[in-house]
């Protein structure tokens, strides 16, 4: 098995009266175990402006109810630009330029795709999906 860790550090000297400093590390395990995940996919795409939401990462039956994790970062540098992140056709939130997210993704059904939309301008988006396997499309 592989050992993959993800660490977050949240810090601010002036958001609160006292300094904020928080750090947490997780090892990416398969669901309900201490066995490390062994598969991942990654990519970089330029999401075209406007239009309908596009599928960034396709949910598959093999990922159903597993302990997948997905990282997505908006690499645009214009502060007014953002991408809308949706799942199952439902908006979760917005990633503004430079923002990133790291979330669990259980793929409750094959419609639970990670979708992205860039309302204003084209945005470059990078992503990594750590998973326990996926269903491949037939050739």
């Amino acid at each position: 098995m592989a050992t993959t860790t993800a660490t977050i550090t949240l810090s601010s000297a002036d958001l609160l009266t006292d300094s904020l400093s928080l750090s947490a590390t997780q090892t990416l395990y398969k669901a309900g175990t201490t066995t490390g995940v062994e598969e991942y996919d990654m990519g970089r795409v330029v999401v075209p402006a406007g239009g309908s939401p596009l599928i960034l990462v396709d949910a598959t039956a093999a990922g159903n109810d597993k302990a997948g994790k997905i990282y997505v970062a908006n690499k645009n540098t214009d502060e007014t630009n953002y991408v809308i992140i949706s799942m199952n056709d439902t908006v979760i939130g917005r990633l503004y330029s430079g923002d990133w997210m790291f979330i669990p993704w259980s793929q409750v059904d094959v419609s639970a795709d990670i979708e992205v939309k860039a309302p204003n301008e084209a945005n470059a988006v990078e992503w990594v999906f750590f998973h326990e396997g996926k269903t491949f499309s037939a050739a």
Partner: protein
Amino acid sequence: MATTTATITISSTDLLTDELSLSTSAAFTAAGNSTGIVATGGLGRKTTGNTTEYTLLDASLYTDDAAHKVYLKNMSVTPAQYFEVQIAGVVVGKLYAGDWALIPWSADTTGTNCDVDITPSHANMVLEYMLFVG
């Protein structure tokens, strides 16, 4: 304005043949500008009594379609224990023991009721959370 930074580092020496190392930082700003966020929902720690669904964050209390971020961490050390996380009634995923997440949150209340809900797999589990109000 405040300067608040979130950094993620993902690394592995054996997931691939070559080493994996990814790190990026984001400064939390308000929606559509470079002004640092000035509000937080505070760092909270919640012990759930049973396995029913709890509303962790009420979308109606926050501005719709802004740049909010939610930090979650499951404090359990038992591998099988998880929190199922839902946003707007959609299951996002299961946060297993020791897992954390940083989730963008629209807090939308016009199109959907975008509350953040959690359902623990077992009784008496502990979740730490923080809302950064964008």
